[in-house]
Protein backbone atom coordinates (compact mmCIF):
# COMPACT_ATOMS: atom_id res chain seq x y z
CA UNK A 1 0.00 0.00 0.00
CA UNK A 2 1.31 3.35 -0.96
CA UNK A 3 -0.89 5.23 1.46
CA UNK A 4 -0.12 6.28 4.97
CA UNK A 5 -2.81 6.04 7.56
CA UNK A 6 -1.39 8.43 10.05
CA UNK A 7 1.60 10.27 11.30
CA UNK A 8 1.77 8.42 14.53
CA UNK A 9 0.79 11.43 16.62
CA UNK A 10 -1.53 11.11 19.56
CA UNK A 11 -5.00 10.70 18.05
CA UNK A 12 -6.72 12.26 21.04
CA UNK A 13 -5.02 15.59 20.29
CA UNK A 14 -6.62 15.83 16.87
CA UNK A 15 -9.95 17.51 16.17
CA UNK A 16 -12.92 15.16 16.18
CA UNK A 17 -13.62 15.56 12.47
CA UNK A 18 -10.07 14.74 11.54
CA UNK A 19 -10.10 11.62 13.68
CA UNK A 20 -13.38 10.61 12.10
CA UNK A 21 -11.93 11.11 8.64
CA UNK A 22 -8.96 8.94 9.55
CA UNK A 23 -11.31 6.25 10.81
CA UNK A 24 -13.44 6.57 7.70
CA UNK A 25 -10.38 6.15 5.50
CA UNK A 26 -9.40 3.05 7.46
CA UNK A 27 -12.92 1.71 7.02
CA UNK A 28 -12.78 2.41 3.28
CA UNK A 29 -9.49 0.54 3.00
CA UNK A 30 -11.03 -2.38 4.90
CA UNK A 31 -13.94 -2.44 2.48
CA UNK A 32 -11.46 -2.42 -0.37
CA UNK A 33 -9.71 -5.45 1.09
CA UNK A 34 -13.04 -7.25 1.46
CA UNK A 35 -13.89 -6.63 -2.17
CA UNK A 36 -10.43 -7.76 -3.29
CA UNK A 37 -10.85 -10.98 -1.29
CA UNK A 38 -14.33 -11.59 -2.71
CA UNK A 39 -13.04 -11.29 -6.27
CA UNK A 40 -10.01 -13.43 -5.46
CA UNK A 41 -12.12 -16.17 -3.85
CA UNK A 42 -14.47 -16.57 -6.78
CA UNK A 43 -11.64 -16.36 -9.31
CA UNK A 44 -9.63 -18.92 -7.36
CA UNK A 45 -12.64 -21.23 -7.06
CA UNK A 46 -13.22 -21.06 -10.78
CA UNK A 47 -9.55 -21.71 -11.52
CA UNK A 48 -9.52 -24.69 -9.13
CA UNK A 49 -12.57 -26.26 -10.72
CA UNK A 50 -11.40 -25.68 -14.28
CA UNK A 51 -7.95 -27.17 -13.61
CA UNK A 52 -9.49 -30.13 -11.77
CA UNK A 53 -11.93 -30.75 -14.62
CA UNK A 54 -9.26 -30.43 -17.28
CA UNK A 55 -6.93 -32.79 -15.44
CA UNK A 56 -9.70 -35.32 -14.88
CA UNK A 57 -10.74 -35.28 -18.52
CA UNK A 58 -7.10 -35.57 -19.58
CA UNK A 59 -6.81 -38.69 -17.44
CA UNK A 60 -4.51 -37.24 -14.81
CA UNK A 61 -1.70 -34.81 -14.39
CA UNK A 62 1.46 -35.50 -16.39
CA UNK A 63 4.37 -36.84 -14.31
CA UNK A 64 2.08 -37.35 -11.32
CA UNK A 65 0.30 -40.55 -10.22
CA UNK A 66 -3.47 -40.60 -10.42
CA UNK A 67 -3.77 -40.46 -6.66
CA UNK A 68 -1.43 -38.94 -4.14
CA UNK A 69 -1.11 -40.12 -0.54
CA UNK A 70 -2.22 -37.75 2.15
CA UNK A 71 0.50 -37.19 4.73
CA UNK A 72 -0.45 -38.84 7.99
CA UNK A 73 0.42 -35.67 9.87
CA UNK A 74 -2.49 -33.99 8.16
CA UNK A 75 -4.88 -36.76 9.21
CA UNK A 76 -3.81 -36.81 12.81
CA UNK A 77 -6.17 -34.04 13.89
CA UNK A 78 -9.02 -35.81 12.12
CA UNK A 79 -8.25 -39.00 13.95
CA UNK A 80 -7.84 -37.27 17.29
CA UNK A 81 -10.92 -35.12 17.08
CA UNK A 82 -13.41 -37.18 15.14
CA UNK A 83 -11.92 -40.60 15.70
CA UNK A 84 -11.94 -41.28 11.98
CA UNK A 85 -9.18 -43.53 10.74
CA UNK A 86 -8.48 -44.07 7.07
CA UNK A 87 -6.46 -47.06 6.01
CA UNK A 88 -4.61 -45.65 3.04
CA UNK A 89 -5.72 -42.04 2.59
CA UNK A 90 -5.18 -40.71 -0.91
CA UNK A 91 -6.35 -37.72 -2.87
CA UNK A 92 -6.75 -37.15 -6.59
CA UNK A 93 -3.71 -35.45 -8.12
CA UNK A 94 -6.08 -33.39 -10.32
CA UNK A 95 -7.72 -31.96 -7.21
CA UNK A 96 -4.34 -31.22 -5.63
CA UNK A 97 -3.12 -29.37 -8.73
CA UNK A 98 -6.44 -27.54 -8.95
CA UNK A 99 -6.19 -26.33 -5.37
CA UNK A 100 -2.59 -25.26 -5.92
CA UNK A 101 -3.53 -23.25 -9.00
CA UNK A 102 -6.47 -21.75 -7.09
CA UNK A 103 -4.19 -20.59 -4.29
CA UNK A 104 -1.85 -18.95 -6.79
CA UNK A 105 -4.77 -17.22 -8.51
CA UNK A 106 -6.05 -16.02 -5.13
CA UNK A 107 -2.70 -14.54 -4.16
CA UNK A 108 -2.10 -12.87 -7.53
CA UNK A 109 -5.66 -11.53 -7.68
CA UNK A 110 -5.48 -9.95 -4.24
CA UNK A 111 -2.04 -8.50 -4.95
CA UNK A 112 -3.20 -6.93 -8.21
CA UNK A 113 -6.34 -5.48 -6.71
CA UNK A 114 -4.72 -3.83 -3.72
CA UNK A 115 -1.84 -2.50 -5.80
CA UNK A 116 -3.91 0.58 -6.67
CA UNK A 117 -4.67 2.57 -3.49
CA UNK A 118 -7.97 1.31 -2.10
CA UNK A 119 -9.28 4.77 -1.30
CA UNK A 120 -8.75 5.78 -4.93
CA UNK A 121 -10.76 2.73 -5.98
CA UNK A 122 -13.53 3.86 -3.66
CA UNK A 123 -13.35 7.37 -5.10
CA UNK A 124 -13.62 5.97 -8.61
CA UNK A 125 -16.70 4.00 -7.55
CA UNK A 126 -18.26 7.15 -6.05
CA UNK A 127 -17.53 9.97 -8.53
CA UNK A 128 -19.59 12.49 -6.58
CA UNK A 129 -17.24 12.06 -3.66
CA UNK A 130 -14.05 11.84 -5.65
CA UNK A 131 -12.65 15.35 -5.37
CA UNK A 132 -13.83 16.14 -1.86
CA UNK A 133 -12.65 12.83 -0.43
CA UNK A 134 -9.29 13.11 -2.15
CA UNK A 135 -8.89 16.66 -0.89
CA UNK A 136 -9.85 15.60 2.62
CA UNK A 137 -7.39 12.72 2.43
CA UNK A 138 -4.59 15.07 1.38
CA UNK A 139 -5.60 17.58 4.04
CA UNK A 140 -5.52 14.93 6.74
CA UNK A 141 -2.16 13.72 5.52
CA UNK A 142 -0.85 17.29 5.62
CA UNK A 143 -2.28 17.68 9.13
CA UNK A 144 -4.41 20.67 8.26
CA UNK A 145 -6.74 21.90 11.00
CA UNK A 146 -8.03 25.14 9.45
CA UNK A 147 -11.68 26.12 9.62
CA UNK A 148 -12.19 25.27 5.97
CA UNK A 149 -10.45 21.93 6.42
CA UNK A 150 -12.74 21.08 9.33
CA UNK A 151 -15.72 22.11 7.29
CA UNK A 152 -14.52 19.87 4.49
CA UNK A 153 -14.13 16.97 6.91
CA UNK A 154 -17.69 17.48 8.16
CA UNK A 155 -19.04 17.58 4.64
CA UNK A 156 -17.08 14.50 3.54
CA UNK A 157 -18.23 12.54 6.59
CA UNK A 158 -21.83 13.44 5.81
CA UNK A 159 -21.35 12.38 2.20
CA UNK A 160 -19.68 9.13 3.23
CA UNK A 161 -22.76 8.18 5.23
CA UNK A 162 -24.72 8.28 2.00
CA UNK A 163 -22.01 6.59 -0.05
CA UNK A 164 -21.72 2.88 -0.54
CA UNK A 165 -18.86 0.51 -1.17
CA UNK A 166 -21.14 -1.71 -3.25
CA UNK A 167 -19.92 0.21 -6.26
CA UNK A 168 -16.52 -1.35 -5.72
CA UNK A 169 -18.06 -4.68 -6.59
CA UNK A 170 -18.95 -5.33 -10.21
CA UNK A 171 -22.06 -7.41 -9.55
CA UNK A 172 -22.37 -8.47 -13.18
CA UNK A 173 -18.84 -9.84 -13.16
CA UNK A 174 -19.47 -11.65 -9.88
CA UNK A 175 -22.70 -13.14 -11.23
CA UNK A 176 -20.99 -14.32 -14.43
CA UNK A 177 -18.17 -15.91 -12.45
CA UNK A 178 -20.61 -17.65 -10.11
CA UNK A 179 -22.51 -18.98 -13.12
CA UNK A 180 -19.26 -20.26 -14.60
CA UNK A 181 -18.42 -21.91 -11.28
CA UNK A 182 -21.82 -23.61 -11.28
CA UNK A 183 -21.40 -24.77 -14.86
CA UNK A 184 -17.91 -26.14 -14.27
CA UNK A 185 -19.11 -27.85 -11.06
CA UNK A 186 -21.91 -29.57 -12.94
CA UNK A 187 -19.49 -30.57 -15.67
CA UNK A 188 -17.11 -31.98 -13.06
CA UNK A 189 -19.87 -34.10 -11.52
CA UNK A 190 -20.96 -35.27 -14.94
CA UNK A 191 -17.43 -36.28 -15.87
CA UNK A 192 -17.11 -38.21 -12.60
CA UNK A 193 -20.37 -40.09 -13.21
CA UNK A 194 -19.87 -40.81 -16.89
CA UNK A 195 -16.17 -41.39 -16.31
CA UNK A 196 -14.97 -39.62 -19.43
CA UNK A 197 -11.29 -39.85 -20.03
CA UNK A 198 -9.27 -38.61 -22.95
CA UNK A 199 -6.23 -40.49 -21.73
CA UNK A 200 -4.92 -43.06 -24.19
CA UNK A 201 -6.96 -41.83 -27.12
CA UNK A 202 -3.80 -41.51 -29.10
CA UNK A 203 -2.79 -45.13 -28.33
CA UNK A 204 -5.33 -47.57 -29.76
CA UNK A 205 -3.62 -50.74 -28.47
CA UNK A 206 -4.45 -49.96 -24.84
CA UNK A 207 -8.06 -49.20 -25.36
CA UNK A 208 -9.16 -52.81 -25.33
CA UNK A 209 -7.40 -53.59 -22.10
CA UNK A 210 -8.44 -50.66 -20.05
CA UNK A 211 -12.07 -50.82 -19.07
CA UNK A 212 -13.47 -47.41 -18.47
CA UNK A 213 -10.28 -46.16 -16.95
CA UNK A 214 -10.70 -48.37 -13.88
CA UNK A 215 -7.52 -48.89 -11.97
CA UNK A 216 -6.65 -52.50 -11.26
CA UNK A 217 -5.47 -51.61 -7.77
CA UNK A 218 -8.69 -49.99 -6.84
CA UNK A 219 -10.38 -51.73 -3.92
CA UNK A 220 -13.34 -49.51 -3.31
CA UNK A 221 -16.90 -49.70 -4.50
CA UNK A 222 -17.06 -51.12 -8.02
CA UNK A 223 -19.59 -51.39 -10.78
CA UNK A 224 -21.82 -54.36 -10.01
CA UNK A 225 -22.83 -54.92 -13.64
CA UNK A 226 -19.20 -55.19 -14.70
CA UNK A 227 -18.51 -57.91 -12.11
CA UNK A 228 -21.67 -60.00 -12.27
CA UNK A 229 -22.26 -59.76 -15.97
CA UNK A 230 -25.31 -58.74 -17.87
CA UNK A 231 -28.65 -59.30 -16.20
CA UNK A 232 -30.69 -62.16 -17.58
CA UNK A 233 -34.16 -63.57 -17.02
CA UNK A 234 -34.39 -66.72 -15.06
CA UNK A 235 -36.29 -69.29 -17.20
CA UNK A 236 -39.43 -70.55 -15.70
CA UNK A 237 -39.70 -74.33 -15.28
CA UNK A 238 -42.00 -75.86 -17.88
CA UNK A 239 -41.98 -79.56 -16.86
CA UNK A 240 -44.82 -80.97 -14.76
CA UNK A 241 -43.65 -83.50 -12.20
CA UNK A 242 -45.61 -86.03 -10.27
CA UNK A 243 -44.68 -86.37 -6.65
CA UNK A 244 -45.65 -89.18 -4.36
CA UNK A 245 -45.70 -88.58 -0.62
CA UNK A 246 -45.13 -91.58 1.53
CA UNK A 247 -47.45 -91.40 4.48
CA UNK A 248 -46.74 -94.78 6.00
CA UNK A 249 -45.45 -94.98 9.59
CA UNK A 250 -46.51 -91.56 10.51
CA UNK A 251 -50.08 -91.91 11.19
CA UNK A 252 -53.09 -91.49 9.06
CA UNK A 253 -54.15 -88.44 7.29
CA UNK A 254 -56.33 -87.37 10.11
CA UNK A 255 -53.43 -86.19 12.28
CA UNK A 256 -52.85 -82.67 13.43
CA UNK A 257 -51.01 -80.08 11.37
CA UNK A 258 -47.92 -80.36 13.53
CA UNK A 259 -47.79 -84.02 13.05
CA UNK A 260 -48.31 -83.63 9.36
CA UNK A 261 -45.39 -81.19 9.17
CA UNK A 262 -43.10 -83.49 11.13
CA UNK A 263 -44.04 -86.44 8.96
CA UNK A 264 -43.22 -84.32 5.87
CA UNK A 265 -39.72 -83.58 7.07
CA UNK A 266 -39.10 -87.17 8.03
CA UNK A 267 -40.46 -88.57 4.84
CA UNK A 268 -38.17 -86.81 2.43
CA UNK A 269 -38.84 -86.28 -1.22
CA UNK A 270 -38.32 -88.75 -3.99
CA UNK A 271 -39.43 -87.87 -7.41
CA UNK A 272 -39.32 -90.02 -10.41
CA UNK A 273 -36.88 -87.70 -12.11
CA UNK A 274 -33.89 -85.66 -10.96
CA UNK A 275 -34.33 -81.87 -11.05
CA UNK A 276 -31.13 -80.20 -12.11
CA UNK A 277 -30.19 -77.07 -10.34
CA UNK A 278 -29.66 -73.91 -12.32
CA UNK A 279 -27.39 -70.97 -11.68
CA UNK A 280 -29.19 -68.18 -9.94
CA UNK A 281 -29.86 -65.23 -12.11
CA UNK A 282 -28.79 -61.70 -11.21
CA UNK A 283 -31.04 -58.77 -11.31
CA UNK A 284 -29.67 -55.29 -11.17
CA UNK A 285 -31.93 -54.16 -8.42
CA UNK A 286 -30.54 -56.63 -5.92
CA UNK A 287 -27.88 -55.41 -3.66
CA UNK A 288 -24.51 -56.97 -3.24
CA UNK A 289 -25.15 -57.65 0.42
CA UNK A 290 -28.28 -59.71 -0.48
CA UNK A 291 -26.29 -61.81 -2.91
CA UNK A 292 -23.73 -62.52 -0.21
CA UNK A 293 -26.49 -63.52 2.21
CA UNK A 294 -28.08 -65.83 -0.29
CA UNK A 295 -24.73 -67.40 -1.04
CA UNK A 296 -24.07 -67.96 2.65
CA UNK A 297 -27.45 -69.55 3.16
CA UNK A 298 -26.90 -71.79 0.16
CA UNK A 299 -23.61 -72.93 1.58
CA UNK A 300 -25.18 -73.72 4.93
CA UNK A 301 -28.02 -75.66 3.32
CA UNK A 302 -25.52 -77.66 1.31
CA UNK A 303 -23.47 -78.40 4.41
CA UNK A 304 -26.56 -79.61 6.23
CA UNK A 305 -27.54 -81.72 3.25
CA UNK A 306 -24.05 -83.25 3.08
CA UNK A 307 -24.16 -84.02 6.79
CA UNK A 308 -27.41 -85.83 6.40
Amino acid at each position, binding site marked *: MSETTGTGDDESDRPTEERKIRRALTQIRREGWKVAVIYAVIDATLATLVVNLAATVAGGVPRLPTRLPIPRALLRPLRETAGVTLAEPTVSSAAVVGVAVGLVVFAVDVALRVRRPLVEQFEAANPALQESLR*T*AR*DAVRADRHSRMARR*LYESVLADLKRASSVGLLDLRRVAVTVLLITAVSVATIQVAVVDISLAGLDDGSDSGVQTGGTDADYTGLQDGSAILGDPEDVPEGSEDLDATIDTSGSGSGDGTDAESAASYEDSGFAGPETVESQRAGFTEREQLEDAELIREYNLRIREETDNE
Partner: protein
Amino acid sequence: MSEPTTDIDRLQQRLVGVRKEVGKRIVGQTEVLEGLLVCILADGNALLESNPGLGKTTMVRTVADVTDLDFSRVQNTPDLMPSDITGTEIIRESGGNREFVFEKGPIFANVVLADEINRATPKTQAALLEAMQEKQVTAAGETYDLPRPFFVLATQNPIDQEGTYPLPEAQTDRFLIKLVLDYPSYEEERDIVNLYTGGGSGSTPPVEKVLTREEIKEIQSLVREVPIADDVRDRAIRLVRATREAETVEFGASPRASMGLVLTAKARAFMRGRNHVSWEDVEAMAAPVLRHRILLDFRAEREGLSTDDVIAELVDEV
Protein backbone atom coordinates in the same frame (compact mmCIF):
# COMPACT_ATOMS: atom_id res chain seq x y z
CA MET B 1 -22.79 21.86 13.46
CA SER B 2 -19.96 23.87 14.97
CA GLU B 3 -19.98 27.66 15.11
CA PRO B 4 -17.22 28.32 12.55
CA THR B 5 -19.05 26.27 9.97
CA THR B 6 -22.22 28.29 10.49
CA ASP B 7 -20.17 31.43 10.14
CA ILE B 8 -18.73 30.25 6.84
CA ASP B 9 -22.20 29.39 5.60
CA ARG B 10 -23.35 32.88 6.45
CA LEU B 11 -20.45 34.46 4.58
CA GLN B 12 -21.04 32.30 1.54
CA GLN B 13 -24.67 33.35 1.59
CA ARG B 14 -23.58 36.97 1.73
CA LEU B 15 -21.58 36.48 -1.45
CA VAL B 16 -24.67 35.13 -3.14
CA GLY B 17 -26.41 38.29 -1.96
CA VAL B 18 -23.65 40.46 -3.47
CA ARG B 19 -24.12 38.91 -6.88
CA LYS B 20 -27.85 39.31 -6.59
CA GLU B 21 -27.57 43.00 -5.68
CA VAL B 22 -25.04 43.74 -8.44
CA GLY B 23 -27.40 42.02 -10.84
CA LYS B 24 -29.93 44.77 -10.14
CA ARG B 25 -27.68 47.20 -11.99
CA ILE B 26 -25.57 45.03 -14.28
CA VAL B 27 -27.28 42.96 -16.91
CA GLY B 28 -25.33 39.88 -18.02
CA GLN B 29 -21.54 39.94 -17.72
CA THR B 30 -21.81 37.17 -15.14
CA GLU B 31 -18.34 35.80 -15.82
CA VAL B 32 -16.75 39.22 -15.52
CA LEU B 33 -18.61 39.89 -12.29
CA GLU B 34 -17.53 36.54 -10.94
CA GLY B 35 -13.94 37.28 -11.93
CA LEU B 36 -14.16 40.64 -10.24
CA LEU B 37 -15.42 39.15 -6.99
CA VAL B 38 -12.88 36.34 -7.18
CA CYS B 39 -10.17 38.96 -7.49
CA ILE B 40 -11.44 40.83 -4.45
CA LEU B 41 -11.71 37.63 -2.38
CA ALA B 42 -8.22 36.59 -3.44
CA ASP B 43 -6.94 40.01 -2.41
CA GLY B 44 -5.63 40.74 -5.88
CA ASN B 45 -5.98 43.33 -8.62
CA ALA B 46 -7.61 43.02 -11.98
CA LEU B 47 -6.88 44.30 -15.44
CA LEU B 48 -10.01 44.86 -17.46
CA GLU B 49 -9.97 45.12 -21.20
CA SER B 50 -13.05 46.44 -22.87
CA ASN B 51 -14.36 48.92 -25.30
CA PRO B 52 -15.90 52.07 -23.86
CA GLY B 53 -19.51 52.04 -22.76
CA LEU B 54 -19.75 48.47 -21.56
CA GLY B 55 -20.48 49.38 -17.96
CA LYS B 56 -17.20 48.62 -16.29
CA THR B 57 -17.33 51.75 -14.12
CA THR B 58 -20.91 50.99 -13.15
CA MET B 59 -19.97 47.45 -12.30
CA VAL B 60 -17.03 48.40 -10.09
CA ARG B 61 -18.98 51.18 -8.41
CA THR B 62 -21.87 48.82 -7.74
CA VAL B 63 -19.55 46.25 -6.23
CA ALA B 64 -18.18 48.96 -3.97
CA ASP B 65 -21.70 50.03 -3.04
CA VAL B 66 -22.94 46.60 -2.04
CA THR B 67 -19.78 45.79 -0.14
CA ASP B 68 -19.50 48.93 1.92
CA LEU B 69 -16.15 49.81 0.34
CA ASP B 70 -14.73 53.23 -0.53
CA PHE B 71 -14.54 53.84 -4.21
CA SER B 72 -12.33 56.19 -6.21
CA ARG B 73 -11.63 56.63 -9.86
CA VAL B 74 -8.44 57.73 -11.57
CA GLN B 75 -8.66 58.79 -15.19
CA ASN B 76 -5.19 58.18 -16.54
CA THR B 77 -3.75 60.72 -18.96
CA PRO B 78 -0.23 61.32 -20.25
CA ASP B 79 0.23 64.32 -17.97
CA LEU B 80 -0.83 62.45 -14.84
CA MET B 81 1.94 62.49 -12.24
CA PRO B 82 2.56 59.76 -9.65
CA SER B 83 1.77 62.16 -6.84
CA ASP B 84 -1.62 62.77 -8.42
CA ILE B 85 -2.39 59.18 -7.62
CA THR B 86 -0.52 58.48 -4.43
CA GLY B 87 -0.87 61.90 -2.84
CA THR B 88 1.52 64.67 -1.95
CA GLU B 89 2.66 66.80 0.96
CA ILE B 90 1.18 70.22 1.14
CA ILE B 91 1.76 73.15 3.48
CA ARG B 92 -1.20 73.77 5.71
CA GLU B 93 -1.67 76.72 8.02
CA SER B 94 -3.42 76.17 11.29
CA GLY B 95 -3.30 78.55 14.25
CA GLY B 96 -0.58 80.66 12.65
CA ASN B 97 1.61 77.61 12.19
CA ARG B 98 2.55 76.09 8.91
CA GLU B 99 3.13 72.39 8.65
CA PHE B 100 3.53 69.78 5.98
CA VAL B 101 0.69 67.38 5.86
CA PHE B 102 0.25 64.46 3.54
CA GLU B 103 -2.75 64.84 1.32
CA LYS B 104 -3.81 61.35 0.37
CA GLY B 105 -4.40 60.71 -3.30
CA PRO B 106 -7.24 58.75 -4.88
CA ILE B 107 -5.36 55.51 -4.38
CA PHE B 108 -6.35 55.63 -0.71
CA ALA B 109 -9.62 53.84 -1.25
CA ASN B 110 -10.76 50.28 -1.00
CA VAL B 111 -11.71 50.01 -4.64
CA VAL B 112 -9.76 52.05 -7.18
CA LEU B 113 -10.78 52.17 -10.79
CA ALA B 114 -7.75 53.21 -12.86
CA ASP B 115 -9.31 53.99 -16.19
CA GLU B 116 -7.20 53.55 -19.32
CA ILE B 117 -4.02 52.80 -17.46
CA ASN B 118 -2.12 52.55 -20.72
CA ARG B 119 -2.61 56.28 -21.25
CA ALA B 120 -0.48 57.12 -18.22
CA THR B 121 3.27 57.48 -18.54
CA PRO B 122 5.41 54.54 -17.48
CA LYS B 123 6.50 56.45 -14.38
CA THR B 124 2.94 56.93 -13.20
CA GLN B 125 2.09 53.36 -14.11
CA ALA B 126 5.04 52.14 -12.05
CA ALA B 127 3.91 54.18 -9.03
CA LEU B 128 0.41 52.76 -9.27
CA LEU B 129 1.61 49.22 -9.73
CA GLU B 130 4.06 49.51 -6.87
CA ALA B 131 1.27 50.69 -4.61
CA MET B 132 -0.79 47.74 -5.76
CA GLN B 133 1.98 45.33 -5.00
CA GLU B 134 3.20 46.73 -1.71
CA LYS B 135 -0.19 47.85 -0.42
CA GLN B 136 1.51 50.96 0.85
CA VAL B 137 2.67 54.36 -0.42
CA THR B 138 5.89 56.17 0.46
CA ALA B 139 5.94 59.97 0.22
CA ALA B 140 8.58 62.32 1.66
CA GLY B 141 10.19 59.49 3.54
CA GLU B 142 6.95 58.48 5.21
CA THR B 143 5.19 55.21 4.51
CA TYR B 144 1.42 55.10 4.49
CA ASP B 145 -0.53 51.87 4.50
CA LEU B 146 -3.31 51.62 2.00
CA PRO B 147 -6.75 50.77 3.37
CA ARG B 148 -7.70 47.13 3.48
CA PRO B 149 -9.19 45.54 1.59
CA PHE B 150 -7.52 47.18 -1.35
CA PHE B 151 -8.46 46.44 -4.89
CA VAL B 152 -7.39 48.09 -8.13
CA LEU B 153 -9.27 47.58 -11.34
CA ALA B 154 -7.30 48.97 -14.23
CA THR B 155 -8.85 49.23 -17.64
CA GLN B 156 -7.27 49.18 -21.06
CA ASN B 157 -8.88 50.29 -24.28
CA PRO B 158 -7.91 47.87 -27.03
CA ILE B 159 -9.10 50.16 -29.84
CA ASP B 160 -7.27 53.40 -29.33
CA GLN B 161 -3.56 52.69 -29.56
CA GLU B 162 -2.37 56.19 -30.32
CA GLY B 163 -0.70 58.05 -27.49
CA THR B 164 -0.65 55.04 -25.22
CA TYR B 165 2.05 53.38 -23.20
CA PRO B 166 1.22 49.68 -23.21
CA LEU B 167 2.04 47.96 -19.96
CA PRO B 168 5.14 45.80 -20.25
CA GLU B 169 4.79 42.10 -19.48
CA ALA B 170 6.60 42.52 -16.17
CA GLN B 171 3.99 45.02 -15.08
CA THR B 172 0.97 43.15 -16.25
CA ASP B 173 2.23 40.14 -14.27
CA ARG B 174 1.32 42.12 -11.14
CA PHE B 175 -2.35 41.89 -11.98
CA LEU B 176 -3.86 38.75 -10.60
CA ILE B 177 -6.33 38.36 -13.42
CA LYS B 178 -7.25 39.95 -16.70
CA LEU B 179 -10.93 40.15 -17.56
CA VAL B 180 -12.24 40.77 -21.04
CA LEU B 181 -15.61 42.39 -21.43
CA ASP B 182 -17.48 41.60 -24.58
CA TYR B 183 -20.53 43.23 -26.05
CA PRO B 184 -23.80 42.03 -24.53
CA SER B 185 -26.24 39.88 -26.44
CA TYR B 186 -29.31 41.45 -28.04
CA GLU B 187 -31.58 40.46 -25.18
CA GLU B 188 -29.13 41.72 -22.59
CA GLU B 189 -28.75 45.02 -24.41
CA ARG B 190 -32.52 45.36 -24.56
CA ASP B 191 -32.74 44.79 -20.82
CA ILE B 192 -30.00 47.37 -20.23
CA VAL B 193 -31.90 49.91 -22.30
CA ASN B 194 -35.14 49.15 -20.46
CA LEU B 195 -33.43 49.33 -17.07
CA TYR B 196 -31.79 52.70 -17.59
CA THR B 197 -34.32 54.46 -19.83
CA GLY B 198 -37.52 53.24 -18.28
CA GLY B 199 -39.78 54.92 -15.79
CA GLY B 200 -39.00 55.90 -12.24
CA SER B 201 -36.39 58.41 -11.29
CA GLY B 202 -34.22 57.49 -14.24
CA SER B 203 -31.20 57.11 -12.04
CA THR B 204 -29.34 53.89 -11.34
CA PRO B 205 -31.38 51.30 -9.45
CA PRO B 206 -30.75 51.25 -5.70
CA VAL B 207 -28.75 48.43 -4.13
CA GLU B 208 -28.30 47.30 -0.54
CA LYS B 209 -25.07 46.83 1.32
CA VAL B 210 -24.84 43.14 2.03
CA LEU B 211 -21.17 42.67 2.89
CA THR B 212 -19.02 44.69 5.24
CA ARG B 213 -15.31 45.28 4.75
CA GLU B 214 -14.63 43.26 7.89
CA GLU B 215 -16.48 40.34 6.39
CA ILE B 216 -14.49 40.72 3.17
CA LYS B 217 -11.26 40.51 5.16
CA GLU B 218 -12.62 37.46 6.93
CA ILE B 219 -13.47 35.86 3.61
CA GLN B 220 -10.03 36.68 2.23
CA SER B 221 -8.56 34.83 5.17
CA LEU B 222 -10.88 31.85 4.69
CA VAL B 223 -10.15 31.65 0.97
CA ARG B 224 -6.51 30.91 1.67
CA GLU B 225 -7.61 28.08 3.97
CA VAL B 226 -9.68 26.32 1.32
CA PRO B 227 -8.10 22.86 0.96
CA ILE B 228 -6.86 21.80 -2.43
CA ALA B 229 -6.01 18.21 -3.36
CA ASP B 230 -2.38 17.57 -4.14
CA ASP B 231 -3.11 16.30 -7.62
CA VAL B 232 -5.24 19.35 -8.49
CA ARG B 233 -2.53 21.68 -7.21
CA ASP B 234 0.17 19.79 -9.12
CA ARG B 235 -1.89 19.87 -12.28
CA ALA B 236 -2.34 23.64 -11.94
CA ILE B 237 1.41 24.04 -11.61
CA ARG B 238 1.98 21.80 -14.62
CA LEU B 239 -0.42 23.98 -16.58
CA VAL B 240 1.55 27.13 -15.79
CA ARG B 241 4.83 25.39 -16.55
CA ALA B 242 3.41 24.17 -19.85
CA THR B 243 3.11 27.78 -20.99
CA ARG B 244 6.90 28.02 -20.80
CA GLU B 245 7.40 24.92 -22.89
CA ALA B 246 4.64 25.29 -25.47
CA GLU B 247 5.83 25.81 -29.04
CA THR B 248 3.27 28.49 -29.72
CA VAL B 249 4.25 30.58 -26.68
CA GLU B 250 7.27 32.84 -26.79
CA PHE B 251 7.20 33.90 -23.12
CA GLY B 252 5.46 31.78 -20.54
CA ALA B 253 3.93 32.59 -17.19
CA SER B 254 5.92 33.06 -14.00
CA PRO B 255 5.58 31.20 -10.68
CA ARG B 256 3.46 34.14 -9.60
CA ALA B 257 0.93 32.80 -12.08
CA SER B 258 0.99 29.41 -10.35
CA MET B 259 0.22 31.06 -7.03
CA GLY B 260 -2.45 33.22 -8.64
CA LEU B 261 -4.08 30.27 -10.35
CA VAL B 262 -4.37 28.24 -7.16
CA LEU B 263 -5.54 31.24 -5.13
CA THR B 264 -8.21 32.31 -7.59
CA ALA B 265 -9.38 28.70 -7.87
CA LYS B 266 -9.77 28.67 -4.09
CA ALA B 267 -11.69 31.94 -4.17
CA ARG B 268 -14.00 30.63 -6.89
CA ALA B 269 -14.60 27.43 -4.95
CA PHE B 270 -15.45 29.43 -1.82
CA MET B 271 -17.76 31.72 -3.73
CA ARG B 272 -19.59 28.71 -5.13
CA GLY B 273 -20.12 27.34 -1.63
CA ARG B 274 -17.62 24.52 -1.91
CA ASN B 275 -15.16 23.43 0.75
CA HIS B 276 -12.47 22.28 -1.60
CA VAL B 277 -10.95 23.25 -4.92
CA SER B 278 -12.16 21.35 -7.92
CA TRP B 279 -10.30 21.04 -11.21
CA GLU B 280 -13.28 22.85 -12.69
CA ASP B 281 -12.22 25.95 -10.69
CA VAL B 282 -8.70 25.78 -12.06
CA GLU B 283 -9.99 25.37 -15.59
CA ALA B 284 -12.30 28.36 -15.21
CA MET B 285 -9.56 30.58 -13.82
CA ALA B 286 -6.82 29.49 -16.23
CA ALA B 287 -7.60 32.02 -18.95
CA PRO B 288 -8.12 35.04 -16.66
CA VAL B 289 -4.92 34.28 -14.77
CA LEU B 290 -2.70 33.38 -17.73
CA ARG B 291 -3.91 35.40 -20.72
CA HIS B 292 -1.97 38.57 -19.81
CA ARG B 293 1.09 36.68 -18.69
CA ILE B 294 2.04 34.88 -21.87
CA LEU B 295 3.23 36.16 -25.20
CA LEU B 296 2.34 34.15 -28.23
CA ASP B 297 4.86 32.97 -30.80
CA PHE B 298 4.59 34.01 -34.45
CA ARG B 299 3.43 30.47 -35.26
CA ALA B 300 0.33 30.94 -33.13
CA GLU B 301 -0.38 34.27 -34.83
CA ARG B 302 0.13 32.67 -38.24
CA GLU B 303 -2.40 29.98 -37.34
CA GLY B 304 -4.80 32.60 -36.08
CA LEU B 305 -4.74 31.33 -32.49
CA SER B 306 -5.66 33.68 -29.69
CA THR B 307 -4.12 33.53 -26.24
CA ASP B 308 -7.30 31.96 -24.90
CA ASP B 309 -7.14 29.28 -27.61
CA VAL B 310 -3.59 28.35 -26.64
CA ILE B 311 -4.51 28.25 -22.94
CA ALA B 312 -7.50 26.04 -23.70
CA GLU B 313 -5.22 23.65 -25.61
CA LEU B 314 -2.79 23.53 -22.70
CA VAL B 315 -5.62 22.88 -20.24
CA ASP B 316 -6.64 19.89 -22.33
CA GLU B 317 -3.08 18.62 -22.50
CA VAL B 318 -2.14 18.67 -18.81
